[in-house]
């Protein structure tokens, strides 16, 4: 039986690229949807606000695994015979991240003091100008550390995409182990690669947090 070699490491490196790609899709897609939902969540219209609350609660209350199954098989039922795993995993992770980012960002928007909203309003700014020129610049500073922190969750959770047959880092590790049966070596390497991706992100998040606490500017 062959043992763990450079070929396997290369395969894992290639799979890690897919993990990064899927993370990027989840973050960008989840960010766009999540931002829209965050705005809906603080809308003056009650119906819009409730729709956002329901969305957030449902997404946060559904295990990502189940979400991925639902989308993978759900799309097939709707009529598309063969759903590419990347699409199913991308949609699933986008929905998952949007539910959490919406809630994180809502908190950040609301933590900009109400008096700032009032001051902007009293200067006759339009709601759009108020958001882009006054509220967002302040909210983004507050939002950066928790957002980067959540990025780590996204990276780790892409491993669940293996259940719909997507070959990312975790799935690649499983495939290699099936052929050479050296679980400890293989999964140690897999874990090390995850760590190499996530550790810089956590460090960055912590550094941002510290910087923000020291100077409010």
């Amino acid at each position, binding site marked *: 039986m062959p043992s763990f070699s450079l070929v396997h490491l290369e395969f894992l490196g290639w799979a890690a690229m897919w993990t990064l790609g899927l993370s990027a899709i989840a973050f960008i897609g989840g960010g766009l949807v999540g931002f829209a939902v965050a705005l809906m969540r603080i809308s003056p219209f009650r119906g819009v606000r409730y729709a956002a609350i329901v969305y957030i609660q449902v997404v946060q209350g559904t295990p990502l695994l189940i979400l991925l199954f639902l989308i993978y098989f759900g799309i097939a039922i709707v009529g598309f015979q063969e759903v590419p795993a990347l699409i199913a995993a991308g949609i699933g992770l986008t929905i998952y991240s949007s539910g959490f980012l919406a809630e994180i960002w809502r908190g950040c928007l609301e933590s900009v003091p109400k*008096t*700032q909203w*009032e*001051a*902007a*309003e*009293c*200067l*006759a*700014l*339009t709601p759009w*100008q108020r958001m882009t*020129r*006054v509220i967002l*610049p*302040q909210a983004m*500073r507050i939002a950066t550390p928790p957002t980067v922190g959540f990025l780590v969750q996204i990276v780790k959770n892409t491993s669940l995409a293996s259940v719909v047959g997507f070959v990312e880092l975790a799935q690649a590790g499983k495939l290699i182990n099936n052929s050479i049966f050296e679980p400890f070596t293989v999964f140690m390497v897999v874990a090390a690669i995850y760590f190499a991706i996530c550790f810089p992100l956590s460090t960055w998040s912590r550094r941002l947090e510290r910087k923000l606490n020291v100077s*409010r*500017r």
Partner: protein
Amino acid sequence: MSAVVKLSNVHKSFGTNKVLDGVSFEVGRGEVAAVIGQSGSGKSTALRCINALETIDGGTIDVCGHAVHDAKLDRRSLRRDVGIVFQSYNLFPHLTAEQNIMLAPTCVKKKSKAEARELAHDVLRRVGLAEKADHFPEQLSGGQQQRVAIARSLAMQPKLMLFDEVTSALDPQLTGEVLKVMEDLARGGMTMILVTHEMAFARKVASQVVYMHKGKVWETGPGSMLDKPKTAELADFVGSGL
């Protein structure tokens, strides 16, 4: 003298708490009205109603030709005419003094950057802070921040300025520098309504004093009315040393 602001029988409740109970008063062009009264007398709420920051339950408010009580009120158009300065300054912390002032003229009045900058320096000079243009709010003292906030309002060339207890968060020395700016404004003919605890200032600068008590206008008259109150409540209030 035409009325710039006219409140008639204004009612406003927060839940079951009646805050304004039939408030009426008028402020003419170039007049300085000082609204005084205990905490909870409704004076700040009255001021916020004038700027449509609060909606009223009954009565009418006319401000510079805008029917503020009307559900179809164009708030942005009202706020181009009315400037407001708050107790907590409310400068935008991510912008410098100059940028704070330039924001509304560029966004709302579509002035060019250069025009707005010139305007910013002009109003900063008027409040005595020309050299602080590039400072962020956190680098300024409370009194300086409040003067920048006044300058920010002034830059929109309002027809009416509202001051909501603008010196209440300041120590006596800083209070003085802010009051001086307001006095200059009053001399310059600006129509102003100020909610204040500064009795000496009200007596000296105000052309009209409005004493509010329990959500009603209790007494109104020139600054000298503070020396010979007609009602026991005002006598009490003046006598309490506020």
